[in-house]
């Protein structure tokens, strides 16, 4: 009994210490965002402030079009999350429920697609998006559509790999029983598979949301029009060649991080069980 109490004390201490270390950068970011200029540029930064100010946030929100950028980011990320979950779900069902030739080939293709170095592809992707724009203006350069399309495609391989384990874990007999009861394909998919795979969908949604929301590279490549931008470009305003406006950077970063944290809080419950599908043998 005594041993267990000591063990628990050690576990608690280690956990709290780890939590403190891990959370510190976020704390410092939010703190710096509230600090007045003279405290930011102080040789003796303190882990608190007695004169919190909203000045940095005012600067961040004062960047032309910040509200619009925010909505653009939210729109892109939401569309990518929904479409990616839907398309990956269908593909995962096909890969686990159908036996067809080239199935392994397709799986390897998805794995290889996951390894593609994104930064290396900006030039070919730029030309691809430009050429697509001549056929379909909605997904050409400087459109949010192009950003959605590219993020969607890049989020799929991982989402499919993760969901595959989930669909495989749902016993065939369940679908068989439903089919005998006269349920059609769509009903089986929507009423039986979908709810059982939902935790996995929550986990994959997190991934596609984060990559779409936090992206700099694609936004910088495709969005050439200053009126149509996403959040990262608002952050870039505060980087100066001589000394950066750290207060502004931290305030804009805080504003950018909050929605993701909220999203995480909403789906956190499903995360561990969500990843479970990916790690089954």
């Amino acid at each position: 009994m005594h041993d267990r109490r000591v063990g628990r004390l050690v576990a608690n201490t280690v956990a709290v210490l780890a939590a403190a270390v891990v959370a510190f950068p976020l704390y410092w970011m939010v703190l710096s965002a509230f600090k007045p200029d003279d405290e930011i540029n102080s040789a003796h930064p303190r882990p608190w402030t007695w004169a919190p100010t909203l000045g940095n946030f005012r600067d961040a929100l004062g960047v032309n079009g910040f509200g619009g950028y925010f909505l653009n980011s939210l729109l892109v990320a939401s569309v990518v999350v929904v479409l990616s979950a839907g398309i990956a779900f269908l593909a995962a069902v096909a890969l686990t429920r159908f036996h067809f030739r080239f199935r392994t080939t397709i799986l390897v293709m998805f794995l290889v697609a996951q390894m593609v170095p994104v930064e290396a592809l900006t030039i070919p992707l730029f030309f691809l998006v430009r050429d697509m724009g001549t056929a379909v203006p909605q997904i050409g350069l400087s459109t949010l559509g192009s950003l959605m399309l590219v993020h969607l495609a890049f989020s799929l391989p991982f989402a499919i790999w993760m969901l595959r384990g989930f669909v495989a874990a749902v016993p065939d007999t369940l679908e068989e029983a439903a089919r005998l009861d006269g349920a059609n394909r769509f009903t089986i998919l929507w009423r039986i598979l979908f709810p059982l795979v939902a935790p996995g969908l929550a986990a994959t949604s997190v991934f596609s949301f984060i990559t779409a929301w936090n992206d700099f590279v694609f936004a910088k490549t495709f969005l050439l029009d200053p009126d149509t931008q996403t959040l990262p470009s608002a952050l870039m305003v505060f980087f100066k060649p001589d000394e950066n406006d750290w207060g502004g950077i931290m305030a804009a970063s805080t504003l950018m991080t909050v929605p993701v944290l909220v999203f995480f809080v909403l789906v956190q419950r499903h995360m561990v069980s969500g990843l479970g599908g990916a790690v089954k043998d």
Partner: protein
Amino acid sequence: MRETASPPTSRKPSGDDGQAAPAARRPFSARLRTALGPLPWISPAIILIAFVVLWPVVEMVRSSFLRIRRSGIVKGSNGTDNYKKLFDEPDFTHVLWNTMVWVVCVVGITIVLSLALAQLFNQQFPGRRVARWALIIPWAASVFMTAIVFRWMLHHSYGAINTLLVDLHVIDEGKDWLGEPSTAFPWMIGVAVFVSLPFTTYTLLAGLQTIPGEVYEAARMDGASTWRTYLSVTLPLLRPAILVAVVINLINVFNSFPIIWAMTGGGPGYETDTTTTFMYKIKASDIGESAALSVVNFGIIIVLVLLYLGVNRWNKEAD
């Protein structure tokens, strides 16, 4: 292998149990239906990935053999000269070495720390919830922003870490950690581990939770020590989760760009570059050579992952 009668995109059925023989005897319409069965389900994913991800890769490979002006105008074929020029770069070996250190250290440290954290989070104790919440933070924040915050905390005169270390009398005065390659590289490895921990820990934790309690019960009955149980029961059962964690980390860490870019920009010079940031830098001067390095990079990561998967399978068979 494909039948001429079926459309080029169709996947011919190979029978319900994966063998090819029975399909041939069924009527054509039924065969076609099974062949096209998975198509509507999987074609959106295949089309998108082929068109947006793999097609640009083909273009990248093609341009690695072209002579391309800085303005982007193509001046005809360049044979393998782009590759020759790349391998003759005086900094290339150094950058390759950096990349190896980067991948081995970041993935290795991440896996070891995550194994410990996952073990800790798998216990029942009051502080667990707080710690699990905190661990999500580096995951939710963008990698680029995390790197920026670390750069700010390491600032030679206004940085929090410098102040803390001076107050604790670890160092006498603020250091320019990121100005020196010998201190910048370890710090960047640290940040890369920091951002890789959440996903890895959660994946391993998910793996731990698939291990049934009876297994531990049995080990305890046999009188195995805690450490011994971990090595001979937990770790082998955790193998599928470790596999996923290592493969994903290998890919992400090898292709990692924002940490190095935001913290040192690969500088001074090319001292702290990996092949990924190096590729980005030479793109400004020679697009063809940069494409050649992209192809080399893509080759390296594919070989790395295949090697790891091969070793893993080999180990499994040896059991």
